[in-house]
């Protein structure tokens, strides 16, 4: 197994909710990320999946140092960025970069494409000639010709803008690229183009991806390992094959069941998960998934399960994972 590129230990991010005008006191907090452990191995694509409010986007930003954590350690090749001051953090930035979700909002509309791609280099003190040359090379690498370099973002389609965003993310030569829903805002016929590009670049440049997404179809295609988040916690981590074939956590199972079928002849009787996505601010004791879990017992409602190993490379946070796994007779696609 490749050595760990990023190690996250007990990472937490709490957003306080305050009341009062003159003297603000904290009445409660939103625990967007509430103690997660995760390892990202060099060269792999680790997918972080979950629904709204699970904390995956927040986790991605914490890993990039875009948000200061409330607790925990984020080790990039052994160096803890959670303990750094802003100046030190700035030095580290070239090692990890982000591809943003919004192809329209993530590019400054008043800058040319060349300037946009070269900007990270400019910020980090590279000379003008060098960075313009690099920008043009990156533009070619993502499949847009250098003739586009002097155009503005609004002249491009969503898929092309995402390519520009990818080129920009690669400008500083990072090891880790966090992709936050990189194709969710794109049309279906264009998503495949961008995913293929990301895979090619990973192979050519030896990149490591943290792929944040809610789209399990694409995750199934691109990921090596998958981590599932629910209400600020990681509930299951496994290789892609293991997760899709024999998911251990009830939420993972529900998530996979909820994916619409690929073909009409695959329709099955309904097994929809009941209940709404709960409010992140209203977490009570015990397992977070217990209120919606069809298998919850009293133990689940009082004791919070920790993420533990079920098999090699497969960990789950559920008290009854073994028992449920034995019952896993239905084929899962």
């Amino acid at each position, binding site marked *: 197994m490749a050595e760990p590129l990023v190690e996250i230990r007990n990472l937490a991010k709490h957003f306080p909710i305050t009341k009062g005008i003159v003297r603000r006191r904290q009445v409660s907090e939103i625990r967007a990320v509430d103690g997660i452990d995760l390892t990202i191995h060099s060269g792999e694509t680790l997918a972080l999946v979950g*629904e*709204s409010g699970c904390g995956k986007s927040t986790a991605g930003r914490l890993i990039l140092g875009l948000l200061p954590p409330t607790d925990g350690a984020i080790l990039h090749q052994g160096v803890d960025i959670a303990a750094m001051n802003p100046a030190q953090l700035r030095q580290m930035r070239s090692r990890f970069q982000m591809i943003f979700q919004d192809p329209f909002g993530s590019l400054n509309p008043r800058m040319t494409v060349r300037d946009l791609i070269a900007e990270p280099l400019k910020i980090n003190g590279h000379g003008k000639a060098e960075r313009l040359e690099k920008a043009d090379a990156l533009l070619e690498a993502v*499949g847009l010709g250098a003739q586009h370099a002097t155009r503005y973002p609004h002249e491009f*389609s969503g*898929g*092309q803008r995402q390519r520009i965003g990818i080129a920009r993310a690669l400008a500083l030569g990072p090891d880790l690229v966090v992709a936050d829903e990189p194709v969710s805002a794109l*049309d*279906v*016929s*264009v*998503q*495949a*183009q961008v*995913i*293929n*590009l990301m*895979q*090619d670049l990973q192979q050519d440049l030896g990149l490591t991806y943290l792929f944040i997404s*809610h789209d*399990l*179809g*694409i995750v*199934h*295609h691109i990921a090596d390992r998958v981590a599932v988040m629910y209400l600020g916690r990681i509930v299951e981590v496994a290789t892609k094959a293991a997760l*899709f074939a024999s998911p251990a956590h009830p939420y993972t199972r*529900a*998530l996979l*069941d*909820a*994916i*619409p*079928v*690929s*073909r*009409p*002849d*695959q*329709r099955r009787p*309904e097994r*929809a*998960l*009941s209940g*709404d*996505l709960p*409010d992140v601010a209203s977490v009570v004791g015990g397992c977070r998934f217990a209120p919606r879990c069809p298998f919850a017992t009293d133990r689940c409602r009082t004791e919070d399960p920790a993420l533990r190993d079920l098999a090699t490379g497969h960990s789950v946070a559920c008290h009854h994972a073994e028992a449920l796994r034995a019952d896993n007779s239905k084929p899962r*696609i």
Partner: protein
Amino acid sequence: MALLNISGLTTVFETATGPVGAVDGASFTLEAGEVLGLVGESGSGKSVSAFSILRLINPPGKIIGGRVEFGGQDLLSLAPRQMRAVRGKDISMIFQEPLSSLNPVQTIGAQVMEPLLIHTSIGKRKARDRALAMLYRVGIPDAESRFDVYPHQLSGGLRQRVMIALALVCEPKILIADEPTTALDVTIQAQILALLKDLQSELGMAILLITHDLGVIAEVADRVAVMYAGQIVESAPVQAIFDDTAHPYAAALINSIPDRTRQARRLIAVKGNIPDPRHLPPGCRFAPRCGFAQPSCVTTVQKLTALDPTHATACMRVQAGELARPIPTLTPELPHG
């Protein structure tokens, strides 16, 4: 006789540089009790078609051609007062984003009551009872205590249910659903789709489901019409769309979805981008991106033609028998294509 018969619907938007076509001669039918899926990506004209049916197109948009036959009348020729009597009562609509589609300063109970008060002569008391029953029917827990809450106090999934209740409270014959689950998480989406199917069979209504998600289509649709750049390129029963695809764009759309049954090394991508509506090729609008295009495709105007009573395509090569059905899968494109 079809419940809803749309023929030649054409809607344009006036811009500073002249009219831009959004829907160009779309024709399709909706039978009673069926779910018709209208599938397309951005710029396909699917949402504009739906809005055009209910004449919810405002300037700079304008419906400039076609007929929308419903109950023996052409909706496009009705007076505004008559059209208002149709909306919410015979044909209802639900939208993609419930937060902006519900009135933020009116309680959800009041909003669900409103169509009843407008379209029927039952009193307030009875309307309240029916509205409450509808809220329970769409699966809102504790509907009684939630009757007087405001939309922003509910989650996205519950708001979408409120919108469904609002649309169905007068038991319309047709429900137009414009991307009803796109803004929702996948577990909530599954719930909403199940609810729609349930209500549909209970009320016996037809649903025109607009979406870009073929998975949603595969789950709930009976028939499908695929749109590209303002035109309908294929229409068929849902199984036939998947098994017997008769248009290269429809095939491309189906193929670009990652298949969870196998591991492909690369996804099958379609080269190029959706065309700019101001610069459309004179012939087939998909030709520039089509792997099967011949030179004549770009210049010859395409027409939606029936291959058999239930299946129609706009691809002239398929019509001429030059291209076999189902359209074969192209080999994955080369890098940087």
